[in-house]
């Protein structure tokens, strides 16, 4: 019950957020943060019971016919993620309250943030892969709204769309993978799936399942080559970047990989895909960061790199590596959340986001500088901080990786060195050195902007200093849930003098050296710009351009916008489809029947055909209208001869009305012109003749069957006794088929309304002085 409340409450509060914001003004952030704080409080109270191996779970029937449940569970892995989401969420809401103070759409931002938080909690607490998928997609949609928060800016819209398309397409692949997995495992419940490892891994579809699900995870967690949307997403206001791109959304893919490790993990495919993508992402992120000078983009690329490290750890898959990955998740969430908020605070208080133009802010904002240094030192992996411990653990497990250990270790060491450079650029460069003027007068940010980064930075120290109380109860159960067996690895600072420590020292040393001499390396980073043509971003834009161009060209081809083209297609298809059975079933017409016809019939037929032909060939519209009326008269006579007096009466009155209407309306229209080319006319004549022949064949076919008279006979005989009417046709209309007639009257009423409103509309437009179009008559 509590779990459901945890997930739902975010959505409920999101709806109320705009009103709360309006009512409480600048305190809104603090007030709204109470909910995630309470959730975090509840989760903390569950830590000890979860650490002792208990899991809480609830299930509600959702679509019982399809075996889809709305079910949630809380185990070690869910707890760690849910705690990060709610805890950092509370700090972010407070931060956003200060960051966007007085923004006209602050309420909307809170609403989106809470919606997003609810979706993320749903993802990590879901106990059913389909429940998980629904919340997964909700995070994609809410992050679209968040990244595009400044929707008036084109770049923000493009970045939001890019993130949505990449993660959305990945989500589709993942849905296919999840469905296949549920099908093979025979259940969509996560705990059932995890218990069927042997069935899943021995199945022929296992590789497809693995690849499809990993595509979803890789796009969501910005793994190479899908990493490019994450730096783009920096268009969002900083509170959003800090939340989505440090601790939560980009970790959703990591979460799912960890979650499914007991079922899909430790196959060769899994190992190679995860370590390969992870190592590539780690290096690409770290190297690409070297080319950036904007605070948030630097952080974004270092996030990409960190996500790669975590994926690599999950891919290595040993107990140590999994524990290291989990430790890295926690450490990274703490320092990256803090650094993003620091970057936002710098931008907010100085108006400058380019590192190259920031210097010597230490004296203006001393507290922020300490917070920044603490968080950055954790990213750089300096002892005694959480980042250091996580890095040590990761190096240790890379050294003992079952595959390509040397390459992984080397890549990790290089990335660690480059992350030191990023840390220096983000947290050292802006605060030290000579003071430089900034667009805004620099001063210490308010409490709301300091609380979040400060608390996270302090936690980064505390976790490392008292790991027994703060880190182990979270990391060990999460690692156990990922491994599927009990984890015995502990989170501790000192592992003795070993190779990992040596490598760490080398990485730090190289990093500091590169930072100190960075001016020499800059040209090297610039030289790589030529490779951008081949980058995934370029591919994305290329594909997008191709798709829109293709859609446009084929739409233009099919949708010409000319009525005639559509009609030709309709006629040709109908003629083709109907003619075939007509030709095969109806024999040749009995021409000699013509000799037996009455002269009156023939005369009427000639009158109708000649008038219709005259209406077609008339050079003058009045002539055409008269010919049309003549044809109508001919049809009327036909009705007279063939015992249909009601039809004849109706037809002749309608015909008269039509002619009057035609004359009135067409009075002001231009005279006929010859618009089509000779070839066009010939084509239309051919289509018309084929259509006419088809209809003639249809008449022959219809009349060659004996008509079923039983219904008509019944109606005729019941007409007087039941309907009390002597005219059978009328009784059918107003009695037996009264609903039909009712419908007919409705159609007429609607047509009349349409005519009336069109005439009114014209009057209004005619009254406007700018209307230069010729006024028309026909106010019939």
């Amino acid at each position, binding site marked *: 019950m509590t779990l459901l409340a945890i997930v739902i409450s975010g959505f409920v509060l999101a709806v109320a957020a705009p009103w709360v914001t309006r009512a409480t003004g600048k305190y809104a952030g603090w007030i709204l943060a109470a909910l995630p704080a309470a959730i975090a409080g509840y989760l903390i109270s569950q830590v000890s019971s979860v650490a002792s191996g208990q899991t809480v779970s609830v299930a509600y029937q959702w679509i019982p016919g399809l075996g889809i449940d709305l079910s949630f569970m809380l185990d070690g892995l869910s707890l760690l993620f849910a705690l990060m989401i709610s805890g950092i969420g509370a700090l972010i809401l407070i931060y956003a309250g200060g960051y966007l103070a007085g923004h006209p759409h602050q309420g909307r931002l809170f609403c989106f943030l809470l919606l997003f938080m609810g979706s993320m909690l749903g993802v990590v607490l879901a106990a059913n892969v389909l429940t998980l998928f629904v919340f997964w997609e909700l995070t994609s949609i809410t992050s679209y709204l968040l990244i595009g928060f400044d929707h008036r800016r084109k770049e923000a819209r493009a970045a939001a769309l890019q993130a949505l398309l990449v993660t959305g397409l990945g989500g589709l692949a993942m849905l296919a993978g999840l469905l296949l997995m549920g099908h093979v495992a025979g259940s969509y419940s996560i705990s059932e799936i995890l218990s069927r490892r042997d069935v899943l891994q021995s199945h022929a579809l296992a590789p497809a399942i693995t690849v499809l699900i990993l595509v979803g995870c890789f796009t969501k967690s910005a793994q190479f080559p899908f990493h490019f949307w994450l730096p783009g997403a920096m268009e969002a206001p900083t509170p959003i970047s800090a939340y989505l791109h440090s601790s939560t959304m980009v970790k959703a893919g990591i979460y799912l990989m960890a979650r499914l490790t007991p079922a899909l993990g430790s196959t060769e495919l899994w190992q190679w895909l995860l370590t390969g993508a992870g190592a590539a992402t780690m290096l690409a992120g770290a190297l690409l960061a070297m080319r950036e000078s904007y605070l948030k983009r630097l952080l974004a690329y270092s996030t990409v790199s960190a996500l790669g490290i975590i994926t690599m750890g999950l891919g290595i898959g040993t107990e140590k590596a999994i524990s290291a990955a989990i430790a890295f998740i926690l450490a990274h969430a703490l320092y990256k959340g803090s650094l993003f908020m620091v970057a936002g605070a710098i931008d907010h208080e100085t108006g400058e986001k380019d590192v190259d133009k920031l210097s010597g802010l230490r004296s203006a904002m001393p507290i922020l500088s300490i917070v920044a240094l603490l968080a950055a030192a954790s990213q750089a992996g300096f002892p005694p901080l959480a980042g250091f411990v996580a890095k040590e653990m990761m190096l240790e497990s890379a050294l003992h990786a079952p595959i390509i250990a040397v390459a992984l270790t080397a890549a990790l060491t290089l990335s660690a060195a480059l992350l030191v450079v990023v840390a220096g650029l983000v947290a050292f460069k802006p605060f030290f050195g000579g003071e430089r003027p900034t667009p805004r007068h620099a001063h210490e940010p308010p409490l709301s902007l300091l609380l979040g980064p400060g608390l996270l930075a302090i936690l980064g120290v505390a976790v490392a200093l008292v790991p027994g109380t703060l880190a182990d109860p979270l990391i060990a159960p999460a690692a156990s849930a990922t491994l599927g067996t009990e984890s015995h690895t502990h989170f501790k600072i000192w592992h003795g003098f070993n190779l990992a420590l040596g490598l760490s020292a080398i990485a730090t040393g190289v990093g500091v050296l590169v930072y100190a001499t960075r001016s020499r390396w800059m040209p090297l980073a610039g030289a790589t710009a030529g490779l951008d043509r081949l980058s995934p971003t370029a591919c994305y834009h290329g594909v997008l351009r191709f798709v829109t161009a293709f859609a446009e060209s084929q739409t233009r081809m099919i949708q010409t916008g*000319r009525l*005639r083209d559509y009609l030709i297609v309709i006629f040709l298809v109908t003629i083709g489809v109907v003619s075939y059975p007509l030709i095969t079933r109806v024999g040749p*017409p009995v021409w000699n*029947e013509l000799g037996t016809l009455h002269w009156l019939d023939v005369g009427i*037929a000639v009158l109708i*055909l000649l008038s*219709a*032909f005259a*209406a*077609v060939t008339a050079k003058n519209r009045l002539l*055409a209208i008269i010919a*049309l009326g003549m*044809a109508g008269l001919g*049809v009327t006579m*036909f009705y007279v001869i*063939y*015992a249909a007096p*009601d*039809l004849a009466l*109706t037809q002749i009155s*309608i015909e008269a009305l039509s002619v009057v*209407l035609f004359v009135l*309306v067409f009075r002001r229209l*231009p005279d*006929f*012109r010859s618009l*089509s080319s000779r070839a066009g006319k010939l084509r239309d*004549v051919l*289509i*018309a003749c084929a*259509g*006419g*022949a*088809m*209809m*003639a064949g249809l*008449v*022959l076919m*219809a*009349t060659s069957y004996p*008509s079923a008279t039983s219904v*008509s006979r019944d*109606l*005729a*005989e019941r*007409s007087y006794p039941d309907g009390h009417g*002597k*005219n059978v046709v009328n009784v*059918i209309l107003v009695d037996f088929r009264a609903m039909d007639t009712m419908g*007919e009257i409705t159609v*007429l009423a609607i*047509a009349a309304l*349409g*005519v009336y409103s*069109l005439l009114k509309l014209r009057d209004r437009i005619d009254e406007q002085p700018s209307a230069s*179009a*010729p006024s*028309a*008559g*026909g106010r019939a």
Partner: protein
Amino acid sequence: MQILIAIIVGGIFACAIYMILRRSIVKLIIGLALLGHAANLLIFSAGGLSKAHPALVRPGSTSPPEPYADPLPQALILTAIVISFGVLAFMMVLVSRAYNAVGNDDTDEFVNTER
């Protein structure tokens, strides 16, 4: 008799289709009016043609005298005639309105007119 009505219906349909495919919107409407006649005659012939008595009950009797023409298609056509008139009237006003807006009766020109 079938052959004659087949020729009539086929002939009117051919004229109607040709007119509907014209660029002039006025001709399009004339084509639609012709199409209505042809469709009605098709239904009429499908009910079986006979130069019999109309389906009217004479005084003193309870059912129409044999043989009488099938009343059901007639009822259907009656509805069709009236509705096609309604649609035609709406079309005509719409067309004259469109002509006012575009200043042309060529449907190809309508495509290029943005308003």
